[in-house]
């Protein structure tokens, strides 16, 4: 469906990087470009959308050439038929939610498609509101609905959920997943959130230093890279208490204080303020569901 090969010189905060990518995406696939920020993931999406011109390469979608350096083809973004969801949503501040969607319609008489999208995203009751009056999650839904309003052939999501808090993010992940199943739209997402990649995509390309280093299903790609049978945390030592022969360490991990026992041998060169790593075999951990509506049942204490 999408064949891409592109080369582009980038000036990033970490110096010059040459983005050099070559991949194909099949119809209906949900592919994520994964990697640290500043490796060219967003640039790749922008090249596909026609917002940035690659130095070299070729982009073909559904047999239609959108960009070909050698043949001097560069289809303008208006004619490419992509739905692009920007990191900052880029909703038009002067237009209501409904107008934001309506302006994107290929056929202005297609009102009921606007209604369908508003209902699909659960934002029908917000249709007369201006973007500035919406919460982050609501804006995100509008941005997604608007990107779909043009009936694009390709949906491009640039870190779509990075500005949202954990819970909203999870809910929207489900909605994106639902929409993808509903519309079977070929989707490319850029993300550096492992959980997001895992939940949403059926293919992932890991990009490092402008190059694709590995591609596959998320479970395959990450199984020997980041996921192990061990729990592993790093934290800061807050306090050291001595009880007879052992020490009690208070360690700050994330925003939580954990107390562990350490032997004198382990404590030899550890002081308050040091950064330490806690490793434990996750042989038979207790797994408990955490209720997302606090108040109904108490959370298991750690």
């Amino acid at each position, binding site marked *: 469906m999408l064949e891409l090969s592109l080369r582009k010189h980038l000036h990033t905060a970490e110096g010059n990087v040459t983005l050099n990518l070559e991949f194909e995406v099949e119809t209906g696939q949900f592919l994520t470009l994964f990697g640290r920020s500043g490796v060219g993931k967003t640039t790749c999406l922008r090249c596909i959308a026609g917002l940035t011109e690659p130095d070299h390469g070729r982009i073909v979608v559904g047999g239609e050439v959108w960009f070909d350096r050698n043949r001097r083809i560069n289809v303008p973004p208006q004619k*490419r038929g992509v739905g692009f969801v920007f990191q900052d949503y880029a909703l038009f501040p002067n237009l209501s939610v409904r107008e934001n969607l309506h302006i994107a319609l290929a056929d202005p008489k297609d009102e009921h498609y606007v209604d369908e999208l508003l209902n699909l995203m659960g934002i029908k009751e917000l249709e007369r509101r201006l973007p500035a009056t919406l919460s982050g999650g609501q804006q995100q839904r509008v941005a997604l609905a608007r990107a779909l309003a043009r009936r694009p052939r390709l949906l491009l999501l640039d870190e779509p959920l990075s500005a949202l808090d954990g819970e909203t993010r999870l809910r929207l992940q489900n909605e994106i997943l639902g929409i993808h199943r509903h519309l079977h739209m070929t989707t490319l997402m850029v993300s550096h959130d492992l959980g997001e990649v895992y939940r949403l995509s059926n293919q992932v390309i890991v990009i490092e230093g402008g190059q694709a280093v590995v591609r596959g299903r998320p479970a395959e790609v990450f199984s020997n890279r980041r996921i192990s049978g061990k729990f592993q945390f790093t934290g800061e030592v807050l306090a050291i208490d001595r009880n007879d022969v052992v020490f009690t360490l208070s360690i700050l991990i994330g925003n939580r204080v954990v107390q562990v026992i350490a032997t004198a041998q382990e404590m030899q060169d550890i002081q308050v303020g040091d950064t330490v790593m806690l490793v434990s075999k996750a042989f038979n951990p207790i797994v408990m569901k955490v209720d997302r509506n606090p108040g109904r049942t108490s959370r298991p204490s750690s």
Partner: protein
Amino acid sequence: MAYDWQPLILTLKLATVTTAILILIGVPLGYWLAFGRFRLKAVVETLVAMPLVLPPSVLGFYLLLAFSPKNAFGRFLDDTLGLRLVFSFEGLVVASVLFSMPFMVHPVQSGFQNLPRSLMEAAYTLGLSKWQTLIRILLPNIKPSLLAGVVISFAHTIGEFGVVLMMGGSIPGVTKVASIAIYDEVESLNYSAANFYAFILFAVSFSILLAVFFFNKRALRPL
């Protein structure tokens, strides 16, 4: 004692026509300077900003020379278009447009530049042409800057003196605007008439700016 209202009416007419023309010129020029990438951009920006620092008499002097029917350009305008720009109202309009240009172009340009780039890009990916994007997305979102440009250009044209004097002289009903009438009246020691014009100009300028600050506190921020 009856005062002559003609210079005041002429001033308002000049300011209105000038501002209208400046909207038509300033918006495309501001857009071009904000988004365009071309080699001589710095030169164009400098030329637009020149009236800010140039003595009005310098601009007036060169315009007078350029538009004089004794010189090639002025003769060309006279012969082909029948347009004589020296000592005429049309000439005042041309001079005022040039002289007030930065006051329209700068707010509009910075308004465009301060919009998130993604608004324009989102519009393009949604299939809107450049023209549709300008009319439906960009301009409505820089309304405060546009308003600032319009108000300041209008007020600045009311306050013009040097350029108008050089280009138009003081022909009653044609080029004798209020600011020149004040000068004339003072020259002939007619202080009460001078005060009449001066006070009205003061009051008009004050009211316009007050209304803008009152209704739209954000409007003048781009300056």
